[in-house]
């Protein structure tokens, strides 16, 4: 029988944060195996595994790796960028992966680097993740001492450098091209595509970008064999994912599950359901940017296709449970404020649209909005959707539009009753976003001659 856990398998029975323990549990065997293979064969294994990106977009990793030119096809060095910026509200899986299996992350980076023949790998780690950074750094130092990283790894003739880079607190730097700009020392703002990073990424060189979990899965795929890994999960959604379960649920936490289980299995079966005898009202299935599901949709399965059929997404695997105390207008405000605050300001619809959304929702929440403003809100969402430079604008518009679509009567009551029907009892009351922007006020001290 294939194991239920893949990412955390080695950490199940022992602490494997130290190199020696990780090796004792079988760690770095996959690296040895990979180094004995041709790089193209490694990519074949990834293709066979059906592994799809765990960062949000779910793009098949093997296919993305195969888009990169081979070293003899490009005059530039090839790079791997590791997305450890984990900032989507509700998501906290990558931090646990880095904390519990740091060497598996490094091993995955090494195998993937070898597969694309990268010269260097850059780990872009969320600035607030200080402990995770320290753990990863310690592991990297151990690996360096053992000759697992750096020049001529394990005598294979392959060399790669791993660089840890701490971010400075911007959600947008998790978007892959924003991440690259930030790594280059520029303002973290997304780039227009094409050119895609596989062709012109970091310093205009071919770059593969993958999420921490995606990469941490790679050594296990090599150990199991791609085809065996593909047997886990369901069609088009092979393997396991680490779901971050949070919100109004009895046992929140990270749970690694085979793809294809239902939301009910996770929330009720594993998470213990909504506590305190309250009713489940809604579920955000894949991080704050994904459209909401209602209590009636609890049997939707956690795989890419089922989620798409339900009009939403698996996203970053962050399942947020919402009970009946929550005002959906306040939720909309909270989410819109987050995206307004995190909009990088590069493109018009997102920069101006998210601000406008917040203003309209605030008026609805306060009961100051007229009837037309609900449709105005939907129209503003519509004019953001699909028109921005990067998906952040969509990430604001999609969930808010879904709240209105699925809980329209609640929005309507705010308008009709001139205020919030929850009258101060909503679970989100008082926990609105801290939106005071930390912005530098430019001082004028330049003299103009008369």
């Amino acid at each position, binding site marked *: 029988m294939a194991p239920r856990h893949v990412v955390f398998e080695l950490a199940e029975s022992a602490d494997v944060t130290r190199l020696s323990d990780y090796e004792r549990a079988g760690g770095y065997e996959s690296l040895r195996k990979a180094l004995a293979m041709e790089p193209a064969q490694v990519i074949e294994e990834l293709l066979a595994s059906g592994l799809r990106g765990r960062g949000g977009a779910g793009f098949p990793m093997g296919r993305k790796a195969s888009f990169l030119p081979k070293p003899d096809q490009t005059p530039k060095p090839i790079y791997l960028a590791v997305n450890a910026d984990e900032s989507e509200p509700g998501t906290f899986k990558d931090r646990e992966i880095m904390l519990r299996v740091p060497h598996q992350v490094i091993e995955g980076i090494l195998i993937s680097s070898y597969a694309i023949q990268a010269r260097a790998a850059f780990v872009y780690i969320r600035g607030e993740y200080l402990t995770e950074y320290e753990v990863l750094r310690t592991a990297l130092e151990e690996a360096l001492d053992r000759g697992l990283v750096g020049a001529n790894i394990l005598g294979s003739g392959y060399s790669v450098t791993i660089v840890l880079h701490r971010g400075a607190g*911007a959600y*947008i730097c998790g978007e892959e091209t924003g991440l690259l700009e930030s790594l280059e020392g520029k*303002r973290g703002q997304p780039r*227009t595509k*094409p050119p895609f990073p596989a062709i012109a990424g970091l310093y205009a060189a071919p770059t593969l970008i993958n999420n921490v979990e995606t990469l941490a899965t790679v050594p296990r795929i090599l150990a199991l064999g791609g085809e065996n890994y593909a047997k886990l999960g369901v069609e088009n959604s092979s393997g396991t994912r680490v779901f971050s379960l949070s919100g109004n649920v009895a046992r929140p936490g990270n749970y690694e599950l085979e793809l294809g289980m239902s939301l009910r299995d996770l929330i009720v079966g594993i998470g213990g359901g909504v506590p305190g005898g309250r009713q489940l009202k809604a579920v955000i299935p894949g991080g704050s940017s994904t459209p909401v599901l209602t209590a009636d949709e609890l049997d939707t399965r956690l795989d890419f296709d089922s989620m798409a059929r339900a009009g939403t997404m698996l996203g970053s695997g962050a399942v947020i449970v919402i009970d009946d105390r929550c005002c959906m207008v306040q939720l909309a405000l909270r989410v819109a404020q987050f995206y*307004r*605050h*995190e*909009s*990088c*300001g*590069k*493109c*018009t*619809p*997102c*920069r*101006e*649209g*998210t*601000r*406008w959304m917040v*203003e*309209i929702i605030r*008026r609805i929440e306060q009961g100051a909005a007229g009837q037309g403003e609900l449709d*105005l809100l939907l129209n503003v969402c519509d*004019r953001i959707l*699909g*028109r*921005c*430079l990067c998906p952040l604008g969509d990430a604001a518009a999609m969930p808010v539009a879904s709240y209105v679509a699925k809980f329209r009567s609640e929005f309507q009551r705010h308008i009709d009753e001139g205020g919030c029907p929850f009258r101060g009892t909503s679970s989100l009351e008082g926990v609105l976003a801290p939106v005071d*922007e930390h*912005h*530098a006020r*430019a*001082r*004028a*001290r*330049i*003299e*103009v*001659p*008369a």
Partner: protein
Amino acid sequence: MSAPPEQVTITIDDRSVSVPKGTGLVESALQAGIEIPVFCYEPRLGPPLGACRMCLVEIEGLPKLQAACTLSAQDGMVVRTSATSAQAADGQEGVLEFILLNHPLDCPDCDKGGECPLQDLTLRYGPGTSRMVVQKRTFDKPIPISPLIALDRERCILCYRCTRFSEQVAEDGQLVALNRGASSIIATFEDEPYRAHFSGNVIDLCPVGALTSTVYRFRARPWEIQNVPTVCAMCPVGCNVWATTREGKVARVLARNHPEVDGGWLCDKGRFAHDHLRAADRLTEPIRRIRMRGLVAVPWEEALDAADEGLRAAGASVCVAFSGGETVEQADALSRLVRQGLGADVALLPDDPDPALDAFRAPLAAIRSANVCLVVGDEPVLERAPIVDLWLRAARRGGAEVVTVGPAGAIAAPPGSAAAICAALAASSPPEELRELARDLREADRVALVWSGDDDTGGRHLAGLAAALELGEGSGAYFLPRTPNGRGVAQAWRAAGDGRGIDPSGDEALGALIVSGDEALRDTRVVALADRARFVLTTAMFMNEAAGQSHVILPGTGYLERDGTVVNLEGRSQRLRRTVEPPGWDELAFFAQLARRFGVDVDPWTRAGVDELAALPARSGTAPVVAAPAARGPQRAAGAGGDFELVRYRALFSGAAVERVPQLAFQRPAAEVELPGGDASRLHIATGERVVLRSGEVSRELAARVNRRLAPGVARVAEEHADGLADSVRIEKA
């Protein structure tokens, strides 16, 4: 030659158009006569940004609207703009609605109003009404980001044109975006004034009234102005410009893209110095020195008589000193008066560039596509011919190797060694430090050679190198003259007679001296000559320069008041157009009349035709063979003790015009001396410290600035702060 690019056919709004593969969609549409509206798109700023989303179009087969500016034409593509697609129309209207949400709509008192892309596009594609009922974002405004530019953050639509110009074109890195999302603002780095040679271009680039000129602010409305196409005659580049006039006065100067010359950029001198025409000390009437009464304003006819009388008395003992800013026609009139009318043969020419380079003539734009660019000479290109600096930067961004060899070069060489460098690079076995560069120059497909220094023979040396490298079409060699039309003036002088100019450096008395223009009047050699002259006839714009030794002073004109031809550093003849009336007769009219009195027939007007964008004449002449000058090699010992070789350069922001525009004062060179890093630390001198420069009896106190690119033993000072100092100086802490 490469094969012509493959053609592709696309359909835009049901019109089919065939364009070379790779053509952008915005340009392709234009070719079909269809507008795709843009704000952030500006190909001169680098790759498309895709930020404003104004250009959204529908593309068949793609579910979402696409930013047209980021795409190029692919065969068979079917594109729909707002004209034929409701989705695209909604996209464009939506973007404008978003932009206008926070726009103050203060068009009635905005300088841009009436010539504003935001107004125009709103009219064509925008919503008729506003659905916004909440507060607009507000900022302090306007904020001066320099004495020249005011920033209104409320009007800013965050297209990032200005910051991209600063970062990716001028590469000064001074304009930045701060904050995030709806709080994003444009600012200068660390709130320092935007002090850079090309800062004013951001005013042209700004598609709204967020960046305005403090010089032009509130001076005119667009419907009461006239834009006259002319060229800038403030430096030897000759950028094409629009001069905006209102009620007979020049109110502003804007760039007018000549793709081969300036690429649509303009330096701040060309853009802002025009206000010198209105200076309070501007001369407006002829002045005559009358015994016992001093300088007295006289009628033009009387000035003409006095000039006639003074010159007639001088016989053939006459010298003319040119400024280099005269038009070809002015120089021709004056030259023929002197050489044919008076029989004299002596001129002081500020420039006399060797014509040898005409064999390697190429448009300035060719620099951008060079693989290797070499700059030699002692003076900074940026100060001498600023636009050339932009072309060199563009070349480097495009992957070219740009190497400067000189006192501040990547390869250090002593002052005055440019000729030796050229010879060494042309030789079969160049010295060690130049070997790699010599090889790269030989192997490159396209090369650009630039001489940036005062030596008139530079062109010949550079031509020698160009010949050795066998430079073909696509490559170019450029000598940067000191003055705007030095080339044209020298040509006119030479064409007016076949005698050689006599060296005026003796000390015998001179019958008469003609000083043509304010620049000549400031030349120390001219001042010395005037002492020896019995009669001095001067043309000048400004009184305080012109007084002194002159007997007759004629009010001079500025380039914006002249009709005529100027020859730029490429050898391109460009037509100056009179944009406003001068205060009196212009020089050409005066000297034509004077010449007639001496039997020489000179046209008092300009015959040259008007080309909106002047073409470059074909290459001419053959490459000369130059013997290697016996000169110093590239390397030298570090300065011993506190002894330095002094390199002085003429700062761009200097001269009579700049001095009369208060807004430009901050751009003038600081009273500083640049010192090499090694020497400075050896002498324990840090940036900002006061130092004394001494040569013989002369001493000057300046602030030190450490410049790590300077060659050891070299100190550099702007000409205006180096008065009286010799070529070698001793420097110590004050």
